């Protein structure tokens, strides 16, 4: 079915087509519905919006620049490449955008404690940061495997006063951290707000996180018009759960001449059982509060994702992405661990920017497509995070001992 607009979703029960929804235990239902009610009220409250704007400016450091990656563009010899510099935000990634929004909502709802799940640690750091800023108690659930590969972020969260709760169940990565956060939430419904780190979970989270992240695309639109006098031809972003991709794409969805490409983590290859590409290798299912594409076996058991990038290492994807995929508005492609590593190094050397391994997946796709595009083809890539946190993983992958 053709749609008139790509920005009318979700419906009032949180569905994007058949995806999304609210698949949580009955204990959580009243709370989740209340989050939606409070969110809708807050977004119409000028004082809430003014506080959000001010914090975006003075605490996060927005707007961040749209930057012409000149040497990279020259090197590839094709398209003109811009980076949206989300990695320059306070805490070093786009995650702070939705953490600020959600913590303001938590405060408004009178909650005294926030919890979060984290993979790479970026969302955990962002949550710990806003919790410290507003004096809320904070517990971050993190898979034991991820704690091992993201030690700097673990220490940062602790410095910020958060308790980091290691999760050893299942594959001890992001999905298991989310299970544990849900278990905590259902046990502490009265005082706790769950700050979800991506455009997934029960309604209203996919919508709410998207809305808070859309500042990326709104700024980009204004900046590219100032710099180039026109909209870009192509947007590129990495996608795990999909918050940075949707944040960049959303304000452009009804500009149909602007192509949008989301890059999933192909791990060792989407043909292997070691990847995190839910669109390429998953099928519809229900997990963590929403219906979406999931990596699963024939019996509906969730399979373990793999990516060199902890932030993309999740066997699902936000429901709105699945809808945009089925509507063919956004193209979903993938990049392997090796391709991301290559792009990571290329960016360091040519642009003086150490990109997050997550963002390196987006860059890897640009390395593939840019050389064949004309020089007046404008690509905007979301540099969603900085890669300082990843240097140990990269050193390990390159066989370098630090």
């Amino acid at each position: 079915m053709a749609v008139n607009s790509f920005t009318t979703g979700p419906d009032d029960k949180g569905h994007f087509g058949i995806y999304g929804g609210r698949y949580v235990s009955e204990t959580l239902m009243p709370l989740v519905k209340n989050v939606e009610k409070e969110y809708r009220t807050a977004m119409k409250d000028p004082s809430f919006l003014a506080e959000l704007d001010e914090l975006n400016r003075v605490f996060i450091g927005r707007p961040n620049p749209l930057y012409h990656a000149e040497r990279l563009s020259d090197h590839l010899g094709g398209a003109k490449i811009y980076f949206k510099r989300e990695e320059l935000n306070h805490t070093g990634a786009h995650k702070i955008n939705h953490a600020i929004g959600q913590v303001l909502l938590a405060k408004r709802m009178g909650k005294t404690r926030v919890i979060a799940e984290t993979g790479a640690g970026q969302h955990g750091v962002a949550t710990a940061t806003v919790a410290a800023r507003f004096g809320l108690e904070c517990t971050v659930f993190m898979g034991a495997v991820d704690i091992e590969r993201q030690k700097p972020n673990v220490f940062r969260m602790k410095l910020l006063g958060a308790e980091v709760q290691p999760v050893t169940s299942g594959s001890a990565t992001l999905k298991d951290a989310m299970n544990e956060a849900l278990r905590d939430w259902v046990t502490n419904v009265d005082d706790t707000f769950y700050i979800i780190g991506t455009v997934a979970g029960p309604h209203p989270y996919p919508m709410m996180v998207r809305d808070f992240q859309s500042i990326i695309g709104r700024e980009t639109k204004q900046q590219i018009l100032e710099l180039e006098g026109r909209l870009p031809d192509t947007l590129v972003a990495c996608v795990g759960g999909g918050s940075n991709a949707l944040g960049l794409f959303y304000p452009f969805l009804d500009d149909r001449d602007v192509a949008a490409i989301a890059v999933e983590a192909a791990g060792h290859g989407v043909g292997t059982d070691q990847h995190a590409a839910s669109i390429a290798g998953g099928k519809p299912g229900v997990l963590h509060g929403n219906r979406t594409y999931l990596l699963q076996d024939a019996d509906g058991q969730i399979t373990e994702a793999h990516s060199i990038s902890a932030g993309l290492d999740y066997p699902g994807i936000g429901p709105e992405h699945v809808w945009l995929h089925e509507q063919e508005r956004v193209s979903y492609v993938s990049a392997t661990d090796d391709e991301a590593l290559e792009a990571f190094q290329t960016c360091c050397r040519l642009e003086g920017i150490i990109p997050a391994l997550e963002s390196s997946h987006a860059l890897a796709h640009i390395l593939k497509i840019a050389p064949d595009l004309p020089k007046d083809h404008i690509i905007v890539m979301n540099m969603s995070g900085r890669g300082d946190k990843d240097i140990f993983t990269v050193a390990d992958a390159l066989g370098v001992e630090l």
Partner: protein
Amino acid sequence: MSRLQSTFENLRAEGRAAFVTFVTAGDPDQKTAQDLLNGLPAAGADIIELGMPFTDPSADGPAIDKAAQRALASGASMDRTLELVAAFRKDGHETPIVLMGYFNPIYAYGIDRFVTDAEAAGVDGLIVVDLPPEEDEELRLPANAHGIDLIRLATPTSDDTRLETIVNGASGFIYYVAVAGVTGGKSATADDIGAAVKRIKAHTDLPVAVGFGIKTPEQAKAVAHVADGAVVGSAIVSMIENGLDAIGKPEAGLVKKILGFVNALASGVHAAQK
């Protein structure tokens, strides 16, 4: 009349509550699970909840989570869960069986195929913890058409408005989750439970069974005084965990030992005259 209905009616006539047990299908292996299941009626179980293993049981505590992982590691699947039920019926048991778990394995199996096969195997009801009333129609209607009840849950967070939503379309019984939390956690007081059951009953004529945090025969008895059923799960499932050797094989006599505990719980419930 369905098996669930007649069970509750017979118990009501006897003036006592239902003792509801929970075990996980395929835990720790298919044969042990079958022996345990087949032994539950004689040990005093009035209704059996059989857990459908899922990799990501985010509403369960560690005991039932580990049980699911053990079952999956030993090859559990939806087919084998239904085989357990079919073999239980073939063994001549009429005790109602309620499959309990998460939606994804049912969805992956195919809803129409699932309700058809579940009915054929002899399943009486379903509890799907991540399928609230707002989302359950796609399973509830086909299940009901195959004579299977979709059991709705009420919780301490359910206010009167919410209870109306919960009872509207409910059948079989209402499962009252006695504490806000995961399975196997804190326990509510019998007074709190009694008050909650009374409040639910103002909205429905369905029986109300209570679970979460009931671990001992004494607690089961106290709950049986104020509700139509008492559910014990994690305490039983933990005995399996504690009864495995270093390589995960059940120790000799484990099934008998668990059935002994079930019998003690059942005696507690059955001693509680209402």
